[in-house]
């Protein structure tokens, strides 16, 4: 994560994502989360990079993991438009790292105080990390069982065709059969990989598949650090002593006596965490949810690389008293990147409509209504209206404010 944070700073994303925007799409449960002043925002990323290095080195491990989790999660909660599944995974893994004693061996902390460090960890700590990765893979695979993915090879047909200029393999990527192959193999990989990693006989072959799969995605798609994080993280499926055996280091000391099973508050919290990780992705399968279209249940559900969606939204504000109407220049409120993300998510459209209304009220127009002319297209299907244009988004919206997707 040290590298990821450095990359974030060097690419100017701190400025672009957290300093330049004058408006942020806050999360419903965290409307009070706001960016720090610009210098502090930059400093925070420097601190996160240092903390990432400290975690890797096992230096002040507990404090580093807790601070990294808090700092990174804070950054992710600033603006909905920056949500990415892999950032969510990093938040969760950093939380779990703060709980598990991953610094017991080969860390600065262990070297400084060897007498206080047993060389083994409780089995549940490894199981917890495996569980988190299993959830991500399994739900990512489950989400791929849909007509677009399996029968139409979308959106991979679009994405692979866009990479047909790659040397050697490029021309093959433009062939639709390649998209079908990638789609089916991708879904099978996500659904089966955890079982294959857990089974001793298939583990090594499965890990080779993990490397091949993620390296391929890294080459083909601009998905940053995610493939590398997964390649490293899935090593947790090997027996915990594999580095020792690999390096020929002496075996660990005698394991600790297993803790007695009891219902402590900490275990209850862990239970809640596990349950949440299972329930949250299931929101997407609630009848009529259509998360890809409505955005309901899309985030925190491991719907990874699933859709190519583009939207168009134009706001019209109307003074109820005079009937005067204004067509809003969206860029007066948000950046180009935010606009692109907002236009495909009805909830962000509603958020911005409310912000526009608040802005008009500040300028003395009290009875303001804001409506949106909003369209979106998914995976190359025909564009459809996303939001009912008669609904005043600045007021309480009726349950039917999002126009359902037509049968495709």
């Amino acid at each position, binding site marked *: 994560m040290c590298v*990821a944070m450095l*990359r*974030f700073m060097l690419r100017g*994303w701190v400025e672009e994502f957290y300093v330049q925007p004058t408006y942020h799409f806050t999360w419903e449960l965290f409307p009070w989360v706001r960016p720090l002043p610009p210098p502090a925002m930059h400093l925070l990323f420097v601190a996160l990079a240092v903390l990432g290095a400290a975690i890797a080195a096992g230096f002040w491990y507990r404090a580093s993991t807790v601070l990294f989790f808090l700092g990174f999660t804070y950054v992710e909660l600033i603006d909905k438009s920056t*949500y*990415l*599944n*892999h*950032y969510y*995974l990093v938040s969760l893994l950093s939380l779990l790292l703060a709980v598990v004693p991953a610094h017991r061996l080969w860390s600065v902390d262990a070297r400084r105080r060897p007498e206080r460090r047993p060389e083994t960890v409780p089995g549940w700590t490894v199981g917890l990390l495996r569980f988190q990765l299993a959830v991500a893979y399994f739900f990512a695979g489950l989400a791929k069982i849909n007509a677009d993915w399996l*029968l139409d090879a979308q*959106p991979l*047909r*679009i*994405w692979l*065709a*866009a*990479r*047909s*200029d790659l040397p050697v393999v490029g*021309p093959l990527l*433009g*062939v*639709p*059969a390649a998209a*079908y*192959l990638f789609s*089916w193999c991708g879904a*099978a990989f996500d659904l089966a990989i955890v079982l294959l990693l857990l089974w001793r*006989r298939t583990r090594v072959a499965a890990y080779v598949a993990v490397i091949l799969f993620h390296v391929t995605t890294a080459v083909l*798609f*601009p*998905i*940053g*650090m*995610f493939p590398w994080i997964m390649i490293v993280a899935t090593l947790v499926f090997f027996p915990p002593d594999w580095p020792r055996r690999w390096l020929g280091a002496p075996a660990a000391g005698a394991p600790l006596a297993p803790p007695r099973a009891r219902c402590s508050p900490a275990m209850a919290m862990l239970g809640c965490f596990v349950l949440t990780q299972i329930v949250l992705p299931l929101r997407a399968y609630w009848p009529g949810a259509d998360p890809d279209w409505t955005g309901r249940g*899309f*985030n925190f559900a491991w*719907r*990874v*690389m*699933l*859709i*190519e*969606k*583009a*939207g*168009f939204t134009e706001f019209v504000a109307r003074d109820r008293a005079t009937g005067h109407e204004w067509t809003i220049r969206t860029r007066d409120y948000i950046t180009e990147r935010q606009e*692109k*993300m907002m*236009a*495909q998510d009805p909830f962000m459209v509603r958020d911005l409509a409310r912000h526009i209304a608040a802005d008009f009220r500040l300028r003395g127009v009290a009875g303001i209504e804001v409506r949106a002319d909003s*369209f979106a*297209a*998914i*995976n*190359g*299907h*025909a*564009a459809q209206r996303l939001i009912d244009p008669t609904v005043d988004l600045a007021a309480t919206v009726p349950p039917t404010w999002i126009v359902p997707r037509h049968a495709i």
Partner: protein
Amino acid sequence: MKRTSAVGLTLGGAILAAIVATQHLVLADDKMRPPATSRQAALDNIARSVLLPAYSQLAARSADFAAAATALTTTPSPETLANAQQAWKEMLLAWRRTQAFAHGPVSDLGVYGRIQFWPTRRQSVDRVLRAPRPIDDAYVQELGAHAVGLSALEILLFDTRQDAAARLAAFSGPQGERQRKYFLALVQELLRQTRQVESAWKGSRGFAANFEGGGQDTLNLLVNDLLNAIEVGAQGRLLLAIDKRLEQHARSELVEGGPSGTSQAGVLALLAGARAVFAGADGVGIDDYLQQLRPPVARRIDAQFQRAIDAVKAIAGPLEDSADGVERAVRRAHDECRALEIMMKTEVASTLGVTLTFKSTDGD
């Protein structure tokens, strides 16, 4: 051992079934053959058959205009004035046809805003005409975009404050000396710039080669420029023409192309240029590439382009005409252009992957 074999057999069977199913799907569908039209073929054709000829046309119209301008300044007469006005219009329309792709040499050489800048500032032109400094190339190069290019020349050729006789008089006799010099200097600057742009597109190391080799990046740029042309160039101009807040007496000044009567033809030329880029003229274009990826999208966009062009053609008069019928037609043309914009921003963008936003795909 037996259990292991059973699990192995089950897994093997599942994989085999998946492969068979995939093969069945792949072979059953005619569309599974390798694409006949590649993105590369489309970009090659658009560069060589549409954009390069469009910039060559612009340079040629600029040369025609320079010849007509020389004739006007040498022997000012109603005929030479009319010829110069006509040549200006043809150059403007040639310029509009290039605007579907505004990147490349025209922006790299920093001449885009100098060839045409809107809105025009009449005061800037008047200030040059009244200034004591002799007019030469160095002076013209120091002038801002408001006082040079096609818009400034429109003021000189189609001054709405003057009748035809007064316009001609402004170019005649000793009192017209400064206007003639200013006029010719602007025309010569345009000729230089359009030739520079044309030459930068040509050759084995020209921009056309870069364009063709740019792959997905070029396609992204092209689609974004097309969108800008439709949204700002066509739709924006139509919207301005029906803006009720425009003062009635100044409408022909405030609507682009109003003084020269080219407001409608300008939008039409821009849309025609955009369509030529999209369709690759008579060759392979983005529409053919789309046809490979998603035939219904290609058909819908093509039909919408036609509807937008037809709607602009149906406007019976200049855009700034506030007559009811014209206004209704302008509004309809605006709505058709807007529908085209929406299709481009949603269906085309998502089908071509030009945004590649990877909604929730962890792309940082």
